[in-house]
């Protein structure tokens, strides 16, 4: 099934550093295009800071809207990296190798972007310092540790620091490769970043152990982050549809679903942009899609449990909310889109082996998943607020304003911009893992069949 090709280390260097040692043709126009949105997006954010949150579509009961939805969405996407690199590393899945770096990178940049949202959606964003850390020595009032909004920066900060360090540690050997291939100021920077890596057995051993140890440490952090984000909602008894005990695992599984899908999107783009056909192969898409079927089904199960238990109590406000969310125009349309794009269409394709191995189909289905997952967050956050408690007098609707939509677009441009910027200077596919995979895999003949073989070290 797998066409393995033996590549020499020199070839691997050449292929995988092609985007780093010279600028591809499409690079500058793309960056300019994204840069336009990044710059204008920042301008819009500054305009919002200057004028006030009145420019959004938020109102009295619907105090949180598109920004928080997008925040949860990006935190969700950030779960891709550790899912791919930690879980698959611990389970020693060989096919993870070309994807780990890009997935971790997606983690770092999407978390960075996610952090923007709660901060910019605060009423007075210039005062957030004493929210994020205990700093107010003068007055002696510290952050309120009982507030989930204080858990958020701590959890996301931990996750961001952890994944950045994880990314860096795994980058060191590749930085040494770049150090050996560049000249001038670039060489100086790579030399400093590579810390003098030589590649002796001790360093390689530590690199391998570090991968496993850091994965094991990052895994619990990964689970806690989205759980804590979910508790922002779940601990509030006042909003129907938020106060559910399943939220923590539900959000985590949903995050994995959207994150891994985002990785699929990214892999397709990597294959098309840099022509890494030798490294990102249909079998990788196949493996990810099979993983996604499991994740998506578990996630659908959680959705089902959440819905069942929301109406289980047979209480009028909760039923009113579900009526709005599922049966009332225009929410019913959004709900159907969410259901079809989040599960039915993608999984419907993925059960067929041909679709799993077709990169165009995988690309579009993975995008559909993220449309659905964004809508899922929207459908959790907004209807609950719009139908708050039995005070029908104050029920409201919510339409996001143009400013909010533009900032949503900005966030996508910003993440892509950062990813491409990184890809210009650092290899997106880990060189050393690719080389390691060449060393540790082989083939054997059993009878007439050729069977791929993996080498494991003896304990």
């Amino acid at each position, binding site marked *: 099934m797998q066409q393995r090709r033996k590549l020499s280390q020199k070839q691997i260097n050449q292929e995988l550093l092609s985007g780093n040692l010279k600028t591809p043709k499409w690079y500058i126009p793309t960056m300019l295009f994204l840069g336009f949105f990044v710059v204008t997006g920042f301008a819009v954010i500054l305009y919002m800071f200057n004028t006030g949150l009145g420019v959004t579509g*938020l109102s009295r009961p619907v105090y949180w809207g598109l920004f928080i939805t997008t925040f949860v969405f990006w935190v969700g996407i950030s779960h891709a990296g550790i899912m791919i690199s930690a879980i698959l590393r611990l389970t020693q899945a060989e096919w993870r190798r070309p994807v780990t770096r890009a997935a971790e990178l997606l983690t770092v940049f999407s978390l960075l972007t996610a952090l923007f949202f709660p901060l910019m959606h605060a009423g007075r964003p210039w005062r957030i310092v004493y929210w994020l850390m205990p700093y107010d020595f003068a007055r002696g009032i510290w952050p309120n540790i009982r507030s989930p909004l204080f858990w958020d920066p701590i959890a996301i900060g931990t996750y961001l620091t952890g994944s950045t360090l994880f990314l860096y540690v795994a980058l060191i050997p590749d930085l040494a490769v770049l150090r050996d291939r560049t000249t001038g100021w670039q060489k100086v920077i790579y030399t400093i970043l590579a810390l003098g890596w030589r590649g002796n057995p001790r360093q390689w051993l530590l690199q391998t152990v570090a991968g496993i140890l850091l994965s094991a440490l990052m895994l619990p952090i990964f689970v806690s982050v989205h759980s804590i984000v979910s508790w922002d909602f779940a601990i509030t008894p006042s909003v129907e549809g938020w106060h559910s005990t399943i939220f923590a695992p539900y959000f985590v599984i949903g995050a994995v679903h959207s994150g891994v899908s985002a990785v699929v999107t990214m892999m397709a783009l990597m294959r098309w942009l840099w022509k890494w056909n030798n490294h990102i192969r249909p079998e990788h898409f196949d493996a990810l899609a099979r993983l996604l079927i499991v994740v998506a089904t578990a996630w659908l199960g959680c959705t089902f449990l959440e819905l069942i238990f929301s109406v289980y109590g047979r209480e009028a406000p909760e039923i009113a909310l579900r009526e709005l969310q599922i049966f009332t125009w225009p929410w019913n349309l959004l709900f159907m889109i969410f259901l079809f794009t989040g599960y039915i269409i993608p999984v419907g394709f993925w059960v067929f082996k041909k679709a799993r191995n077709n990169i165009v189909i995988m690309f579009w289905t993975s995008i559909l998943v993220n449309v659905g997952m964004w809508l899922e967050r929207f459908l959790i956050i907004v209807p609950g607020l719009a139908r708050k408690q039995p005070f029908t007098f*104050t029920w409201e609707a919510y339409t996001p304003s143009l400013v909010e939509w533009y900032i949503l677009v900005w966030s996508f441009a910003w993440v892509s911009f950062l990813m491409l910027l990184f890809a210009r200077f650092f290899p997106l596919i880990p060189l050393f893992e690719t080389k390691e995979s060449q060393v540790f895999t082989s083939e054997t003949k059993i009878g007439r069949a050729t069977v791929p073989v993996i080498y494991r070290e003896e304990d």
Partner: protein
Amino acid sequence: MVTENKESKFKWGMAVDIDKCTGCQACVLACQSENNIPINTEKNFKNARAIEWIRVERYWEGEFPDVKAKFIPILCQHCDNAPCEPVCPVYATYHTTEGLNVQVYNRCVGTRYCANGCPYLVRFFNYWEPEWPESLKNHLNPDVTVRSRGIMEKCTMCIQRIRRTTRNAKKNDEELKDGDISPACVDACPTDALVFGNQKDENSRVTQMKNDKRSYTLLDNLQTSPNIFYLAKIDHDKEESEHHEEGTHH
């Protein structure tokens, strides 16, 4: 986990007799001018961003032609177990020893989490910098802060009045009597439907109304233990029919 502070002599509370409320909105107006609340324009109402620390909700009950209107003035319930308080990351809202739920404007960064936590929807966000017509600028109450944009605000039980009266009483060495303090809404109520007082005083009107058999609190299944007590509307028709039924039984 209700924390009753034993040090303070006061635990402020309010009783609202729904039976007496005519829905005249005098309380709303009085609150508006006492507390420097910006003018609620038509646009604000349309965007659902109006700020009313106290509002009168009107519910229709029954089928035409037998329709009844029911008015419920809703203001901050000053819950002892307020869901809005623990969620604030910066302690911009907390519970005072006198049983009030207060908002610290200086601390507030405007996450609006407290407003999501509040089941009664009595917390308001300043989406814009507040504005008044030139002619009204000199009418602002000097005892009350004008809130800037980007922060939450809510009913304070006219804490400026509470402070002023208690301070004066202390200065003059007088005992505070029931009815000495009254928030603007209570002052303005023509039918005496709103009553304010100290719940630790056994004889205060508010304590008596609290112990009335008609007394209830809003959304009591959430167990927020509010300090605003509502006295249920007396439905004369219903009572008559009940009397009638009882009569036939015996």
